[in-house]
């Protein structure tokens, strides 16, 4: 790490994570919830890269690549589900899904 303290990296990471979390909890549009999830995964990546560069180990970047894979799969499956939802309900309101039973 050059001169950026780890503490500040973690502050940035937790700020981004909190913003994404508020988005997931507060939004009604499912597409915005997916975007907020991307922001959250990105924040975790910041924490991993910061820690990896403090200790000068490659493990942080390895974990970032795995998170990247997870984000790609999550976006693909989530968007496919959203397309189904749009076809069925003609809307992306997450409250419509509260009637699922069993």
């Amino acid at each position, binding site marked *: 790490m*050059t001169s950026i303290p780890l503490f500040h990296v973690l502050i940035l990471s937790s700020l981004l994570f909190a913003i994404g979390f508020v988005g997931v909890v507060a939004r009604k549009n499912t597409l915005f919830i997916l975007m907020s999830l991307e922001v959250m995964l990105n924040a975790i990546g910041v924490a991993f890269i910061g820690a990896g560069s403090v200790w000068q180990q490659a493990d942080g970047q390895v974990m970032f690549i795995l998170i990247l894979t997870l984000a790609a799969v999550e976006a693909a499956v989530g*968007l496919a589900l959203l397309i189904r939802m749009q076809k069925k309900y003609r809307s992306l309101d997450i409250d419509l899904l509260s009637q699922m039973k069993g």
Partner: protein
Amino acid sequence: MLANLASIDSLFYLSGLVAVIASLKVVTGNNTVHALLYLVVSLLAVAVCFYLMGAPFAAGLEVIVYAGAILVLFVFAVLMFGLGKDETTHAPQNKGLANMFGAMTLAFALLIEMVIIINNGDMQQSLQADVIDSKAVGIMLYGPYLLAVEIASFLLLAGLLAGYHYAKPDISEGQL
């Protein structure tokens, strides 16, 4: 004068600020396409942060895979949704470039940052000093983390199958 202001620290804080502002705009946005635009800016700002933290390989991956592939997937999905009524009726009228102004300003700040970094020889040297290069990452990936890579490939396969299964036209509803 500019060289005094531009330390690696201050550039990191600036790009972090850009990331936070852009993420806030993503979460609070009304229009889907504008929110996606801000999401791209947020990812690019985080990529600049990675570069300044000595991880240029991760920064490149962030731009290519996140901003290049995942966000394009989102854009395709938004195009398929056709921007439902509840999104467009409350959105402001088309004002030309005015809609893109905020995102473009943030992206322009990131561009200026990158130009400052590339032009500053001292900064380049101190960044080069503790870079973790892609060779080290590759050795780790195919050494101790081999099992994790295999599991990630299974995850990708599962995602592929799930995407195919969900996006397949429904047989019971007749043709699509």
